[in-house]
């Protein structure tokens, strides 16, 4: 029997094999650090008299707490400022490079790793953040960890890990017009549920995945955790190698690296513990209507009612979600009016996402009274977009053009929804209060978010132009 991509990467990093007596000890090639989940880990090191074993395999950035306007004023929220200062202090004390507020390389941790070339095929990558699965798009084994594990990796450059199970999600058929990476992953989560991949490392496969750019693959892998997966991976191929080549941290002997990376994809006869198929041609653009990413429907559909579900637990969850979202159930998705649009996050804050949204926005204006903001995933993405003139497209249409950070994806900085406000958001979580207490979030792709900003309601990006003309 052949070997899966996951198992190949795992085997290359086993310091001590696992067995009935205990977990394996896995070597970690790259440890990404941000301000929110690291301060207590550094304190733990100091308390125990330990140090950082491999600062040369560790990289820190401030992202969750940073303001996205008026950076020259620094961070006005005192607790946020203290947390970012603690990150800078800790990084300096232990010799770890850190990108803070004033760095042109600052950005969301899962955006800067790939764009600087630090994320490469076959690596093990961890970070105290659940969306670390993003880096799996390169054929790396990348997963989120808690602060105790952050401390563990700082001290030992390893993690004890029980062997996860494997699952393959195959996207069959070609992408229909107007359906993009975000719709693939939302559709898959809708199909399997938010715990559907619990305990598994997922490999995404099929022609629709092969046809995606690296940005698209990152969007898919990013939301693996929203389906409960431990990690998500895509087999590296020429698309991957072309993306990595020439980036700052790319291997010096690139040809030799590519030779190694070509061995990584799952063997044709590799077996997975579970298989799932997604029928791509039947997918329409996806929108969430509830308070988990699994509560999702095609834009052409309607909000469900509790009675449509058999399981009493599901019925109760749907009832509560509708109440929180201010929906009755049965509404056409396109009839849901919104007052805020957020374009950004580690899911959809890359240059390709901004291009796709700008394409929709060009020649239109944001609906009167609606607040729309673009928060690039990194300062490098911001600079690239400005070079292409995208900032002008957004600004002229009425979008706010911000600096890089996590921003309204989780609202740890001042960018939040007010109670009752409703957003179309390109982020990854529509949990209660995620974007601000009482805020209501509908997750969509960048193009869908842009179209919603123009019409003022959720709308099918494939037909919104005609709808506008007819209005």
């Amino acid at each position, binding site marked *: 029997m052949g070997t899966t991509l996951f198992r190949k990467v795992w085997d290359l990093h086993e310091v001590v094999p696992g067995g009935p*007596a205990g977990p394996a000890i896995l070597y970690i*090639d790259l440890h990404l650090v941000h301000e*929110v*989940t690291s301060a207590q880990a550094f304190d733990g090191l100091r308390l125990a008299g330990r140090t950082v074993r491999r600062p*040369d395999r560790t990289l820190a950035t401030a992202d969750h707490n940073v303001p996205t306007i008026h950076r020259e004023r620094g961070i006005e929220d005192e607790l946020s400022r203290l947390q970012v200062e603690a990150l800078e202090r800790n990084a300096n004390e232990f010799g770890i490079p850190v990108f803070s507020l004033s760095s042109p390389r600052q950005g969301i941790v899962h955006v800067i790793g790939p764009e600087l070339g630090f994320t490469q095929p076959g690596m093990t990558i961890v970070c105290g953040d659940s969306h670390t699965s993003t880096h799996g798009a390169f054929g790396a084994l990348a997963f989120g960890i808690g602060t105790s594990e952050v401390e*563990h990796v700082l001290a030992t450059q390893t993690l004890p890990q029980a062997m996860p199970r494997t699952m393959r999600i195959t996207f069959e058929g070609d992408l229909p017009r107007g359906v993009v990476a975000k719709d693939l992953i939302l559709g898959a989560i809708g199909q399997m549920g938010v715990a559907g991949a619990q305990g598994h490392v997922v490999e995404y496969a099929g022609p629709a995945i092969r046809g995606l750019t690296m940005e698209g693959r990152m969007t898919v892998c990013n939301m693996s955790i929203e389906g*409960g997966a431990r990690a998500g991976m895509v087999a590296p191929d020429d698309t991957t190698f072309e993306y990595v080549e020439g980036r700052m941290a790319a291997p010096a002997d690139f040809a030799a690296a590519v030779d190694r990376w070509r061995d990584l994809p799952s063997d044709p006869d590799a077996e997975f513990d579970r298989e799932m198929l997604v029928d791509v041609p039947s997918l329409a653009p996806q929108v969430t209507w509830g308070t*988990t990413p699994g509560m999702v429907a095609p834009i052409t559909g309607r909000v469900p009612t509790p009675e449509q579900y058999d399981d009493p637990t599901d019925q109760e969850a749907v009832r509560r979600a509708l109440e929180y979202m201010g929906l009755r159930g049965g509404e056409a998705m396109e009839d849901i009016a919104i007052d805020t649009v957020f374009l950004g996050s580690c899911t959809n804050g890359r240059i390709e996402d901004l291009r796709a949204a700008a394409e929709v926005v060009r020649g239109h204006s944001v609906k009167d009274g609606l607040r729309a903001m673009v928060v690039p995933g990194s300062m490098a993405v911001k600079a690239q977009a400005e070079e292409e003139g995208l900032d002008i497209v957004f600004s002229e249409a009425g979008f706010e053009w911000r600096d890089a950070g996590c921003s309204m994806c989780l609202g740890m900085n001042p960018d939040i929804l007010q109670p009752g406000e409703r957003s179309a958001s390109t982020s990854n979580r529509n949990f209660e209060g995620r974007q601000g207490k009482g805020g209501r979030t509908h997750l969509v792709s960048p193009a869908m978010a842009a179209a919603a900003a123009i019409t003022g309601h959720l709308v099918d990006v494939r037909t919104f132009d005609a709808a506008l003309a007819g209005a």
Partner: protein
Amino acid sequence: MEPITIVTSTVAPMDRADVDTDQIIPKQFLKRIERSGFGEFLFFDWREEDFYLLDRPEYAGARILVAGRNFGCGSSREHAPWALQDHGFDVVIAPSFADIFRTNCTKIGMLPVILPDDDVRAIIGAALDQPGIGMTVDLGESVVVLPDGRSVEFHIEDAVRDRLLNGWDDIGLTLLQSEEIDAYENSREREGPVTTTLL
């Protein structure tokens, strides 16, 4: 961390599925750089909701929480188990847990117990119908004694159980294998990007 062996206590119910870590500890409390003191912010945004029962006097002092499936989903924030532990919980029982949350619990000396759906429903039912009712969780025997007196075994990996029973420091355990880590780095470590070239 503190060892866990046998916990006998009132059981407090959280009768909801897919409780995410954003609810357990909302983002505005993640700015603190201390490890303690999160308990008072536990479920902060749910405190005024009718379904939120944990503040009722009948459940005061409960060390066992029982909840619906997929408990602790979402963000990897360890602040969630910190808040539960600081509030007084040593054990969380549910039909399933999100992977990262479950791992985070075991790293700080809190015990996640997975039981079949029907048994969890029975515990939630008892806790709702007879507020203040107690039960026992025996980690050494991997057994839960339900409020109705039935004993149910649960599965937990041997290594995790031993670590929780003894309160062992996980980093200390790994450092016992420092020679193996040295050997890996000397002979098998893969070429990779060097971050310190940025300094």
